[in-house]
């Protein structure tokens, strides 16, 4: 069964930049509106290993997920009563992690490489969000910005435990310390969350090069004011990060929901399911 094309319901734009300090861009982005898939990875490791790790994360995840969802609809019920896509995501992320880890182990040039990951898979009027590390996903709904992921970082743990207030955390010298990353260990713990999607929502996936340099208020205003031109919105956000210092690579993916996209859109629930069953 072919997965429905979501490009009429979801619009996406991406922008990735080296920034003003670093010599090369270790971030990777993948945005495919037809598949309803956005993947952003912020790589780390010497020489070009960071790019290799983040590039593997987006490429392997993208092709494996497409393969998985071509075989079975993401909104099918899974063993635990949740949607099956959740299991698929954890499984694919686990295999991607193992692939990066293996590459790091088998090639001395890539020793110790790793990458953060944040990804969004849209289907059936909902989105599954998975993340590892400190790359984030925000949602703008009715003009209000909300951060839907919680960083896996030393700073976030210090905030959670009450040692630091979010205000104080901005002054910490311990930025850029992640407590989880893809490729560093043979297995990885992934946070997966499901959110209901409404028309008009705008989702922002970004590397810390954006949220370390641009405050939430500015991000909120940019998403609200420039939503009519998503590509410009992405490039303006990157520009503000660079104007504020651009100390890191900065990447953003924007996904704007134009219309509902229920799983059986247009075919009528039962009939659609019958037809797709006959086509198998």
């Amino acid at each position: 069964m072919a997965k429905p094309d979501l490009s009429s319901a979801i619009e996406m734009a991406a922008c990735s930049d080296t920034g003003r300090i670093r010599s090369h861009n270790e971030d990777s982005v993948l945005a495919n509106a037809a598949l309803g898939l956005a993947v952003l990875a912020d790589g780390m490791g010497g020489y070009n290993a960071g790019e290799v790790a983040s590039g593997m994360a987006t490429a392997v995840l993208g092709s494996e997920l497409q393969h998985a969802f071509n075989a079975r609809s993401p909104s099918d019920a899974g063993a635990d009563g949740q949607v099956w896509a959740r299991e698929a995501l954890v499984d694919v992320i686990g295999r991607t992690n193992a692939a990066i880890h293996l590459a790091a182990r088998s090639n001395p040039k890539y020793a110790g490489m790793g990458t953060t990951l944040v990804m969004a898979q849209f289907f059936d009027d909902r989105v599954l969000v998975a993340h590892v590390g400190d790359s984030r996903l925000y949602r703008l709904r009715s003009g209000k910005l909300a951060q839907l992921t919680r960083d896996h970082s030393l700073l976030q743990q210090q905030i959670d435990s009450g040692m630091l207030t979010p205000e104080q955390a901005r002054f910490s010298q311990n930025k850029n310390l992640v407590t989880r990353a893809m490729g560093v260990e043979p297995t990885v713990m992934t946070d997966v969350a499901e959110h209901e999607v409404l028309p008009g929502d705008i989702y922002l996936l970004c590397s810390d090069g954006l949220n370390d340099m641009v405050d939430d208020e500015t991000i909120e205003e940019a998403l609200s004011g420039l939503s009519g031109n998503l590509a410009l919105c992405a490039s303006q956000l990157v520009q503000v990060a660079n104007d504020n210092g651009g100390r890191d690579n900065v990447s953003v993916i924007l996904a704007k929901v134009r219309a509902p996209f229920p799983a059986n859109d247009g075919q009528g629930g039962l009939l659609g399911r019958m037809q797709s069953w006959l086509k198998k």
Partner: protein
Amino acid sequence: MAKLILSMDNLVLKEIPLNKERTTIGRKAQNDIQIDNLAISGEHAVIVTILNDSFLEDLNSTNGTFVNGQQVKKHFLQNNDVIELGKYRLKYVNEGVAQAAQPDFEKTMVLRPDMMRKVAEHAAGKPPAEAESGNLAPPVDLAPPIRKEPPAAPVGVAAAPQAAAAPDLPLGAIQVLNGSNAGKTLDLVKSLTTLGKPGVQVAVIARRPHGYFLTHVEGARLPTVNGAAINPQAHELKDHDVVELAGVKMEFFLRS
């Protein structure tokens, strides 16, 4: 590495590197920093250092611990903070900022696995031995933190991103010239200011370190500047340029 400079009456007595997880301050001999003065409690205060950050905590001292003139119980130390204990002063100097400037600093670093335990213990407000036996520590990831990049940098940049705009860039503003809002002005204090009617015609003015730039966002027509349509790229605004957008004329000007 961060250090403390101990002085009294502006006379430097010694420098103490903060190379331990816990650096204790007090009158008794077992303290890391012993200050033999009756105004100082036997166990007066402790500084807990986690990687590049240090936290000062008063240990219920009789005369209190002051930082930059304010009495504190717990304080997140920032470069050049001055800790006052009786007549003594301890200046906190953190050279992490200088370290961040080194471009070739090791980018990826896996730290000792016990680091997260230390964080948990400190958060639970217990000395290490006690916390190890207790189970009050908040849940933490088991893996050690992984350093993504050099220690970040100049303190406070993220806190005040607008400050990065060149300080000598004059504040820009627009004044509406026609319609019901004629005469109203808007200061362009934000990084991005959007103008126009969503769905009809929208443009954005970006405040950048070297000037103000107008860019078309949406709508079939491009905004005009001094009567001529701008091209789709960013257009730098000059003092007293007249912008027209969705039927509204407005003048851009620089406040001196």
